[in-house]
């Protein structure tokens, strides 16, 4: 088996295992109030961090480029209560405009 096949199968097995593990923790362990509070906050921190990393990180470097401009425009659109697709498209148009013509 080639390296690539090992990587494809190994990555897929572990990816599913991690997902299934999360779903299989007995609910009684999640009933505790503190665990409940923390569990509600986890997607907020992970998704916020993801936004930050996708906006200014390039591998292990921090880079300010067209992506940041796009995300700032998205922030403005969100603050103005724009519909979801407007938020996403305005970010894409801003970023693409700077990338192509900036």
């Amino acid at each position, binding site marked *: 088996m080639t*390296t*690539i*096949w*090992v*990587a*494809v199968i*190994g*990555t*897929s097995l*572990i*990816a599913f295992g*991690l*997902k*299934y*593990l*999360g*779903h*299989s*923790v007995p*609910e009684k362990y*999640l009933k505790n109030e*503190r665990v409940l*509070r*923390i*569990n509600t*906050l*986890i*997607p*907020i*921190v*992970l*998704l*916020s*961090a*993801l936004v*930050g*990393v*996708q906006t*200014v*990180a390039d591998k*292990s*470097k*921090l880079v300010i480029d*067209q*992506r940041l401009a*796009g*995300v700032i425009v*998205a922030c403005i659109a*969100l603050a103005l209560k724009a519909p*979801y697709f407007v*938020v*996403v498209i*305005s*970010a*894409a*148009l*801003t970023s*693409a405009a700077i*990338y*192509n013509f900036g």
Partner: protein
Amino acid sequence: MSSVNRATVTTSLSVSFTVGLYGTAFGAAGVAAGFSILQTCLLSLLTFSGASQFAVVGVLGAGGSAISGIATASLLGIRNGLYGLRMAPILKVRGVKRVVAAQITIDESTGVAIGQEDLGSGAMKHGFWLTGFGVYFFWNLFTLAGALGAQAMGDPSAWGLDAAVPAAFLGLVWPRLHGNFERALAVSAVLLSLALTPFVAAGIPIIATALLAVAFGWKVRR
């Protein structure tokens, strides 16, 4: 099941299509890194977690070993486990349904689900399933398209996809940032992940922010 809220459907479909489109970039990246079209498509079908997929083709494309590719991808996949922890008590599914739910537990399905919290747990469930299946469909479709026509589209940045994806996630988390507490938490998470980025392997800066959730959630808020 209760009737499906139209706003939930719109959000789910917008997210599915936007993120799915990015599958084109993955398809192209896979082929460019030396993966066959079949291997590239299998990663989307079986691993089904964008960050992990980009990581494994990135590491192997740069000459890394299978083990380092798997390790990096798995590090990025840990957060799906944390999402599963959050979604399980809402979905309450067993057997085959749990297997399916686990496979589609990713940033997007969890993000849309928590974005529907104000509409009730029924809307959260609908958001999860619709987005999970929607992303699965478009992500795989566009992975194949990208793998087949890597050159035709060219650079995803030229299409603004590099900013559309974080904007899409920002739009999902935004409705949850209604108080100063949540905003402070989100800003801390961004700062911590960026501060760690230059020093640790990809994936760790994001998972590390789970510690902030623990710190912020430890005490009862007034």
